[in-house]
Structure formats: C-alpha cells, structure tokens
C-alpha cells in the first residue's frame, strides 16, 4: 500500500466524515465547519486525481467564496448573537429509505459498469493547458460563464437589498 492509497483513504475519510457532520449536526454553524473540511477533503481528492488547478480553485471558490457567503447567510438570518442556531429535520424515515435506495442504485451501477479505462497516469501540471483550452476550444462557454456571473451578481444584489 503506497502513499497515494493511504492518502486517498485519509482524504476520503475526512470528506465523508465532515460531510456527515455537516448533514447530521443540528447546529448550522457546525454544519458549515463540517462543510469546510469536506471541501478541503475534496480538494485533496482532486490533488490525488492529478488536478492541481481544480484543487486550488476548489479551495479558493468554495472556502473563500461560497462558504463565507453561507456563513454570512446564517448570521444575517438569525438574531445576531444567538448561539442556538438549530436546524430541524423532517420526513426523516422516507428520506432514509429513498436516499438509501439512490445510494444503492448508484453503487450498483458503478460496480456493474465495465469502465473502459485508458491512458497513462502521469502527473502533469494542468494550469497552462487549462488556460489554453479556456481561451480556444472552450471560449464560448467561458464567455457565457462570465456573463452568467455578472447576471448573478446583479440579480443577487437586486434581490437581497431591502425595499
């Protein structure tokens, strides 16, 4: 068992464990902390998948952006200093059944599909190649994504402001 495998299990355990905390903890802020470590774990998984650029983007956007937004959301929508920010659950039993079913379906599909594995497993820096692809083959999606971001920015600012 070499280091890569150990690292995978460490990161996988971190991810799943923190995701579990996120899902099952009753305090929203603890959920956010769980999500923080889950994001971190996923970034580690990306590194193991030779996607260094994506890993950094993951941390930059999710931790530096989305998570902070979420925390702001929690704090702006509660009484300012009320530690007790609980979240309740509902329809627990049907959810367990259905989500368990979905998980079973997914795992069955994964294990029964004969994947066509291919290619070398080299580790290469991806940043330059991704940048090049963004500016050539994926230029139009790239531009559309920027327009989307602008629209989201304006839309969010408009929706959130007080009338």
């Amino acid at each position, binding site marked *: 068992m*070499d*280091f*890569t495998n*150990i*690292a995978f299990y460490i990161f996988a355990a971190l991810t799943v464990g923190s995701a579990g905390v996120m899902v099952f903890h009753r305090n929203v*802020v*603890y959920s956010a*902390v769980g999500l*923080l470590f889950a994001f971190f774990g996923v970034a580690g998984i990306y*590194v193991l998948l*030779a996607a*260094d*650029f994506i890993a*950094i*983007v993951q*941390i*930059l956007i999710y*931790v*530096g*952006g989305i*998570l*902070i937004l979420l*925390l*702001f959301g929690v*704090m702006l929508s509660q009484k*300012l*200093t009320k*530690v007790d920010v609980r979240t309740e659950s509902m329809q627990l039993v049907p959810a367990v059944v259905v989500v368990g079913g979905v998980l079973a379906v997914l795992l069955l599909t994964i294990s029964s599909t004969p994947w066509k594995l291919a290619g070398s497993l080299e*580790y290469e*820096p991806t*940043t330059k190649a991704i940048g090049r692809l963004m500016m050539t083959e994926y230029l139009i999606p790239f531009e559309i994504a920027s327009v989307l971001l602008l629209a989201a920015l304006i839309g969010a600012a408009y929706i959130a402001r007080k009338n």
Partner: protein
Amino acid sequence: MPVLNANLTLQAAQFANLPETLQTILFMVLGAAIFAGAAAVLALVGVYLERKISAHMQDRVGPMEVNTEIPVLKNIGHGWAQTLADALKLLIKEDIVPAEADKKLHLMAPFIVFAATLAGFSVLPFGPGLVASDLNVGLFYIIAISSFVVIGIILAGWSSNNKWSLLGAMRSAAQIVSFEIPASLALLVVIMAVGSLNLGDIVAAQAGGIHKWLIWWYPPFNILAFFVFFVASLAELNRAPFDMPEAESEIVAGFHTEYSGMKWAMFFLAEYANMFLVGVIIATLFLGGWTSPFGDFLNSGPFPVFWVTLKAFIVIFVQIWLRWTLPRVRVDQLMYTSWKVLTPFAFVAMVGAGIWMML
C-alpha cells in the same frame, strides 16, 4: 507523490533506509515543525520590531524601559526585554472562555487561523531549492489558503457570543474578501509577466541584480501593481490604516475581544506571521526574492536566505511605519478604496502590462 513531494534539502543518512512512505510522512512532519517554530520566532521578532519602532516614533515610554534585575543583563537598557515580558505575560495569563460561548468553535478558531497562515509558508522559496513544497500552482495556492483565515475569524467572532466580536468578524471578512480582488488582479500582472504560478520560476525570472526585478518590468504598470498589492495586503492583514475590525474606539477589540492567554496569542502570532508571509511574497514577486541585488555577487551559500529575509523585513518595517503614522479610515472609505480605487487601478495595470507584452 511528486505533487506533495517535500524536497527539503536536509537528507540524513538513516532516513534513506526507511520505507518511502514513512520517509515522506517524516519529511512532512519535520517540515511542519520547522515552519511552526520558524513562524513563531519570526513573529516574535515582528512583535519586537513593532514595539520598538512604535516607541521610537511616538516616544512611548514602556518599550524603552523594560529591564531585569539579573546583574549581567541589568544595564543593557533600551528596553530589550519587552518581547520577553510580552511572551511571559501571554503564557501565564488566565485562559478565559465566556460562559455563553460555543466552546469547541471558540477553541478551534485560533487554530484554523494559525494553521492557514502556516500552510502559506510551505510554498515560500527561501533559496535555490530551499522550499518545502515546490508547487507549480504556488502563488494561486497562497491566495486560496489565505481564505481559511477568513473562516477562522468568522468562527472566532461568532463563537464568542458577543456583538462586538461578531461585528468585528463580519467587518474583517467583508474587508478581506473585498481586498482579495485587487490583490489577486495585481498578482495576475506578475503571473502574466513570468508565465508561471510557481514561486521558484518567478524568482528565477528576476535573477541577475536589482534592475531585473519584476517591479521594473513594463513600467509603469508593474510598479502600479506593486502598490495595489501592497495596499491591498495591508487591508487583508487588518493592519492600520485599515484596522477597522479591531477598532478599539468602535468595537472594543473586534473578533478577539473574548480571547485571552494562549488562544489570543495564537491570533497575535498569526498576525505577525502573516506580515512576514506577505513580506516574503512581496519580496518574491516584485523584489527579486532570494536573489542578490548585486547580480552574482553574494548570491550563494547562506546569502539567499539572508536576502529574502532582509527584503521581507524591509517590507514589514514599512508596514509598521504606516501603522504608527496614519490614522484609521472609515468603513465606507475602506470599501471605496477597494472597489473604486484599487480594483480599477489593478485592471489598468493588468491590461496595460498585457498590451505591453503583446507589443
């Protein structure tokens, strides 16, 4: 594991006999320990500098007088023991946790802040090959990892269950997130110029003396980027004149109002370690990193470490100087600075340097 490969240069003989996995892990642990120690020491030096420089600038009495009764050391004078006294005070102070606080998060927050700062150190190059982790996305990594600091601050503010703390935390988070934009844009100028995110490559591109430093490239755009980054980094460090999050006159001490003792010291150390981190980044990106300003002269042996440290401390000196010279700005002025001054200028620098490059 080439991506996480720790290529610390100290290679002891018995190390080579251990299994490779164990070696890697040992390297990592050792590296982390070294950096934690180094960061703590550097932070102490930073604290000392801050004390002394402020005392000189504002004729403060205390830091010039602290002394001891031990005979040999008694008459050195000039308040040499100030840092020692500070450290001792912090260590023996009572660790107060507010009754209504969220204990776990209250404990966790300073660690997140400190760990994030420390993690940033791992990609800084202190000499040829002298870098803990030679990431090819190093610069980007630093930007990303510093966002953990924001999370730590928000958690600290929230878990203290105190409105000053929470307000300070929110201010701090908003401030850091806003200033990350001009800072990152300014960094893009450097990235475009060198064509690499690897800090080692960036230093290598500036080898050969003071006139090759990136700050002189594409004038005046790189100088502009340098200033934008410097100002934005001041704000990201929550330092004066942008220290709204801990504005005593408005919100007591901001997010660390409810912290004391060692936990407070962690924030304190993290702040000074962060100053050093920014110093090294600025030195690396704009001021030639570990290369000597005199070309090949004094550019080998221990000198690279000396040069980068010297440059970093010069930057730190300017930061301290500004803190004790400038008054604090208002919150709206702060946001104005970020969105309406620095961001446009960063764009100008980026576009200008880009056009310059194309010509």
